[in-house]
Each structure stands twice: as structure tokens, then as C-alpha cells.
């Protein structure tokens, strides 16, 4: 009987492994077949991976572009839904010998740079970063600063882009109450909040901004829980907000649902503002009319640029590249033509930020 139990267990375990291993979405065009060519790129996604309609897809787009242009071989890996094998993936790609490794997302910061460098968690001195263990390979971390001579940091001025959509919201709001939904209460998302609040206050100092985070670290489900996103938005609309901006990744879908539901139920229109990509292009047709604009973060431009630099053989290690308004690394989208009437005003603000006349805070 024991035998039967074991057989059942083993069968179940195998089934699990097979099902779990069958990941992967749309294909990479220049996938290396085990042989890393002269120019090899390893891309380690964050949760969601290729096909997430957001952040990861923008990085994938940059890689696809590089594939189509040059003599590049590449491999991409994405973590499990909980993200616990991020480091494993990155190490695997490094061990395979890819010369240029792109970990996508701020969650890779400690993995690339080593926990010892982080004063908050410095008790674990023995832990070294992947970049320190592979000193002859170049790493480019998206959403993180450089942590060594072989690491290129890519950071975005999210606060500057958020300032512009905040200003747009303040101009468009009729109730002078505006909402901000953050996915997880981490410094990166607080940057969005700070810029957004500053943008609202610049146009209308009397307007109220209701701020709500969905989860607290280390619980990162707030980026992936549209039910919470929707209830947070409903709460803000209940309290009189007529425009809500989200920096909550996949939870943002709930905000768009809430905007539609509220507009349909009361007959007076409320708006949502998207984030990262130009979200009006990727949501369902029924939800498009409720998206005022999106705070776009050009991960595709940034990743494309560092890949080009690497392919061209430029020495970029050790630098932290800032993608801000001046290089159009961030900005606001005009799809849907909802902000056409105020674009002159927004572009004027943009020019003032670039010239330094307006300094946007990056912490709330």
C-alpha cells in the first residue's frame, strides 16, 4: 500500500513539474540555440514576463528591435508568479556566457548589487551580487542605479512625467478632488505620488489629492490585484474625486472598470489616468473612453539605447543613465485627444521642468 501512495505522489509531482515548466509566450526571434554568438544578450524579466502588456513587454520590444537589426543572439527568462527565482534566472543567464545581461525591474536591485551594499539588510555580509560574481560581463538594470563598474543603471524621472499628468488632472477636474492609487508602498511608487501631487498643487493649490496604496511591502500583490484597485477607485469616486491616476501595474485594470461603472451609473463622467505604457491602446474598447491620458515611461527607448551602446562597443559600465523629460524618457500620452485643449499648457510646464525653472520633488 505504501508503494501505491508513493506512486500517486510521484505522479502528482511529475504532473506539477511538467505543467509549471510549460511557460513562455510569444517567441523571441533571435533565440540562441545554446551557442552564444559574438554579441549575446540575456534578458531577465520580472513577474509577468513577455506578454504582460506593460513594463516587461516594453523591454521585450526593445530586444526584438535589436534582434531584427543586428547580429545578436539572445535568451530571455521570466520568473515564477511569486518571483522567487529571479536571482536563479539571472545567474543562469550569466553562467551561459551572455556578455550583456538586462534584469528588468527594481526587484533585481539587491540581486545585481548584492545585499551587502544595502545598508538596510547589511547583516548578511556574505551575500554577493550577481554582477560581482561575474565581473567580466556587463549588466544593465532597469529601474535601478549602477552598483559597480560593470553595471549600467537605468533610472527614469517618473516624478517629472507624473507632474505633467497631475497638472492635466488639476486642470480637468471639476470637483477639485483627485485620486492617486499606488500598487505597493515602495520608494519607486512614492516617486510617482510625489510628482503627481506636485503637479496638482502647481495648478490648483486648493485641490485635494486622496492617496491610497494597495499593499505594503513585502506583500507585492498590490501590483496584480485588480479587485483591490477597483475598490480603492470606487472609494475615491465616492469621496468626490473625478480623476484618478494609478501606478499599480496590473491592478490598474480595476480602476478603469470603476471609472466606467461610476460614469454609467451616475451619468456624469469620471476619468482614469494610465501608467507606464499608453494604456488607451491596450485596454478593451469599452474602457478606452474613460482614460484621460497615460504617464508613459519609455522602457523600450531606454533598453534599446543601452543595447545599441553595447553592440557599438561603447564603454557604459558604471554609469547611471537618467531618462527624464529632456530625452523623452517619460511623458504624457495624447492618444484619445482628451488633453489636446491643454497640450500647450502642459508643454510649457515640460519646458520649465527641463530648464530647471520648476523642480519636481521625488519623495512625497
Amino acid at each position: 500500500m505504501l508503494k501505491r501512495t508513493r506512486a500517486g505522489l510521484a505522479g502528482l509531482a511529475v504532473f506539477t513539474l511538467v505543467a509549471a515548466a510549460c511557460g513562455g509566450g510569444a517567441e523571441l526571434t533571435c533565440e540562441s540555440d545554446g551557442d552564444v554568438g559574438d554579441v549575446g544578450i540575456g534578458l531577465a524579466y520580472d513577474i509577468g514576463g513577455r506578454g504582460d502588456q506593460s513594463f516587461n513587454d516594453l523591454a521585450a520590444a526593445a530586444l526584438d528591435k535589436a534582434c531584427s537589426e543586428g547580429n545578436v543572439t539572445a535568451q530571455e527568462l521570466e520568473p515564477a508568479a511569486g518571483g522567487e527565482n529571479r536571482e536563479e534566472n539571472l545567474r543562469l543567464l550569466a553562467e551561459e556566457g551572455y556578455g550583456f545581461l538586462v534584469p528588468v525591474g527594481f526587484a533585481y536591485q539587491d540581486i545585481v548589487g548584492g545585499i551587502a551594499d544595502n545598508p538596510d539588510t547589511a547583516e548578511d555580509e556574505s551575500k554577493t551580487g550577481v554582477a560581482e560574481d561575474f565581473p567580466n560581463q556587463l549588466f544593465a538594470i532597469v529601474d535601478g542605479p549602477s552598483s559597480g563598474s560593470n553595471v549600467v543603471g537605468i533610472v527614469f524621472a517618473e516624478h517629472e512625467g507624473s507632474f505633467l499628468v497631475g497638472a492635466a488632472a488639476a486642470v480637468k477636474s471639476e470637483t477639485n478632488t483627485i485620486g492617486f492609487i499606488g500598487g505597493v508602498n515602495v520608494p519607486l511608487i512614492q516617486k510617482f505620488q510625489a510628482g503627481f501631487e506636485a503637479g496638482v498643487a502647481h495648478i490648483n493649490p486648493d485641490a485635494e489629492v486622496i492617496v491610497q496604496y494597495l499593499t505594503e511591502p513585502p506583500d507585492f500583490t498590490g501590483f496584480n490585484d485588480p479587485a483591490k484597485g477597483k475598490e480603492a477607485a470606487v472609494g475615491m469616486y465616492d469621496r468626490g474625486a473625478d480623476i484618478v491616476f494609478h501606478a499599480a501595474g496590473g491592478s490598474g485594470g480595476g480602476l478603469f472598470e470603476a471609472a466606467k461603472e461610476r460614469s454609467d451609473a451616475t451619468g456624469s463622467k469620471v476619468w482614469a489616468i494610465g501608467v507606464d505604457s499608453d494604456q488607451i491602446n491596450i485596454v478593451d474598447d469599452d474602457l478606452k473612453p474613460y482614460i484621460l491620458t497615460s504617464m508613459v515611461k519609455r522602457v523600450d527607448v531606454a533598453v534599446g539605447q543601452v543595447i545599441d551602446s553595447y553592440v557599438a562597443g561603447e564603454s557604459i559600465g558604471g554609469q547611471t543613465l537618467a531618462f527624464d523629460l529632456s530625452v523623452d524618457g517619460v511623458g504624457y500620452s495624447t492618444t484619445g485627444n482628451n488633453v489636446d485643449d491643454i497640450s500647450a499648457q502642459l508643454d510649457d510646464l515640460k519646458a520649465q521642468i527641463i530648464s530647471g525653472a520648476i523642480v519636481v520633488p521625488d519623495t512625497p
Partner: protein
Amino acid sequence: MSTARDVAEQIPPDRGRPLPDLLHDRRLRLLLLASAVLLLGGVVARATSAQELTSSGTFGAAFRFAMPVMLAGLGGLYAERSGVINIGLEGMMIAGTWFGAWGGWQFGPWYGVLFGVLGGALFGLIHAIATVTFAVDHIVSGVAINALALGGMRFLSTVVYDNVPGAGVTQSPRTAPIDTLSIPFLSGGDLFGWRSPDMLGWIEDRSWVFLSDAAAVVSGVTKGVSWLTLVALALVPLSWWLLWRTPWGLRLRSCGENPYAAESLGVNVLRMKYYAVVTSGGLAGLGGAYLVLVQAGIYREAQTAGRGFIGLAAMLFGNYQPTGVLGGAALFGFADALRIRQTSAVHALLLLVGILLAMFALWTVYRLQLQRGLAIAAFAVGFILWFALTDDVPPEFVPMTPYVVTLLVLSLASQRLRMPAADGLRYRKGEAV
């Protein structure tokens, strides 16, 4: 809170001073307790400008947050009452979200509900085959189900949502919503195309202590309620009736208490366990479908965010009783709703909990249970001091609120929680000693 009372109900008042005659009716006692909580809540909300503490919006959201947790908890109830521990509820719920979204996208929301139930039931069946037929350890099988569901749904997404606009490996296309219902006159529902007045809304806007708060509670559960919510709620009395008032339910429960005795009386224990575990999966799957079709409008990978496990906690909290599961889920739902709608209101909750505990302590002392009363009073003073000495709850602590409250209730209620006697034990036909 009601659950603590339910449990207390089963205890004869053998210690301390007896209850006053007036309070012998359990329903009246519950009603009085609920009114007191609401009255205090209203006062605290006004005193601390935590208006969301008793707003109809919060009650409505609490209700919606509670439903998936309650359905998973009910699922757990069926399985454990038949003697099978179901750690796999989370995985079954994940299957429910995926199949619910797929069915909703392909054929319409109600088909989504059907497919969600079937998807969950499928994983329930796998759990039943593993634990009942092959006698695999229940925990091991449950953990495997959770991993299997996550990976399996990812796999299905890559196959089904390849090149579907708006969808990808981690999300489905948008699903159409299920219709909602508002009661005419009471909550401003439509009557033959005419929008009736919203009486409760009017009372709530007046901001009268207690009256407005009571109106908010009723408004929260009668305004814009999804039809699927009503279906889910109906499952609570239905489950109670099935499990405690039918021969089928008696057989099912006897399998969880003493399967060999049941077997000796001619009950087909293996079959009963199969029924129970598949039902369990179906209910968890329904919870997943609810999450997608009512709450989110879209499937996102891993969007269940542990709701299946919370369902398991709600079941334990509810002492393996359907109404208890509902109570536990409501508590979690309220904490979630309050936190999501107005985080600062959680600070006011400290004061409310402190005052309630203080009243509970007085009551306990009145019943001459001095030691217990002192312990509770210490908690009460702690909460009130915490409220008085701080301006807000540190954000790291906010998500813990439901768990802290649960722990408090569990530790303060008399420990009369009892799991089915043969829960989690391996059963082999004809092995009775």
C-alpha cells in the same frame, strides 16, 4: 464577532453569575451586540473624522471582499467535514479565476460562473483522487494542487491567449460584468424604468448617529448588489440545510467524525469523500469566478493573492459552521475594505476595538470571571493607549489588522473550537480495528 457568541452559546453559563433573563435569547443578544458595535462605530467615526468606518461604501466593499473568502471557506467546510484537509483551496480558486474569465469572455458572465465552478471542481477531483483513492498526505497533495494550478493556468494562457488582443500570458481579455440589483425605494433601484428615490442614501447623508450608520449598513448590502453575490449568500443557509438537515449531510459529516462507524452502517465513505472534495473545489472555483466577474472584470495571474488561504482561516475562525464562515469572511472583508478605502480610518479602528474590549472586560467582571476580565482589560487599555499616543498606524501594521482581530477573538472566546474527529486521517475501506 458573532462567532465568538455562537461558540459561547454552546457553553452552559456554569462559571460566574448567570445571564440576566432578558439576554437568554441568542438572537436578541446578537442584535444588541451588533447595535452596540454600530453605535460605538458611528460615534468613533464622527469623533475621529474616519468617515469611512461606517459609510455605505465601506460596507458594500466589505461585502464584495468577503464573498470569495467565504466561498473558499465554505469549500473548506465541505472537505473537512468529510475528513479531508484542503490546503489546495487557493489552487482551486486560481483555476476558478482562469476558467471563470475564459468562460465569461467566450460565452458571457454566467457561463463564466459555470466554468469557474467546473475548473475548481476539476482540481477538487484531482485532490480527491490523490487523497481519497491513493491516500496521499492531504497537506502534500494540497500544496501540489496550488503549484499545479498556478503553472497549469499559465500554460493554458499561453495556448489560449496567444495573439488575442488585450490578453497575454498573464491576463485574459476583459469580461463583461454581471448585472447588479438595487432595491427600489430603499436604495434607489429602478422600477419599470423609473428611478425610485434612495431613502437609505438620504438618511445616511443626514449623518445622524446610529440611524445614519444603520442606514449605511443596509444600503451597503442592498445597493448595486451583484446577482452573483445573492447566489453566493444563498449558499450559506443551503449548506447548513444540506449538511445538518439531510441524510446526505449526516453521512458526509459522519465520514469526517468516524468513517469506520459510518462504513459499518453502510455508508459508502469513499464516494461521500469524493462528493465533498469535488464540491469543495467547485465552491472555491466559484469564489475565483466571483473575484474575476464581479470584482475585477479581468483575469490576472496570481490575482487571488492568498484569498484561498484566508478562506481556510475563515473556516477555522467559524468553527466549521457555515454562518461562522460567513462571519469570519465578513471580518476579513471589512478590514480589507476599510484599509483600501481610507487607510487612516484603521487608526480609528484601534479606538473602537479598545472601547469594545473595555466593555467586554466590564461584562466579564460582572459575570465574576475576574482573571479573564483583567486580561481583557489589559488589552483594552493597550489599544486605547496605542490610539491616544499615535497619529496613525504604521503602514506595515495596517495589513495585519484582520489577523490581529481574529487572534484576539479566538483567544478571548472560550476555546471550544472543535475540528471533525477524523479530519486529515487516512481512511482505508475495511481497515476498522
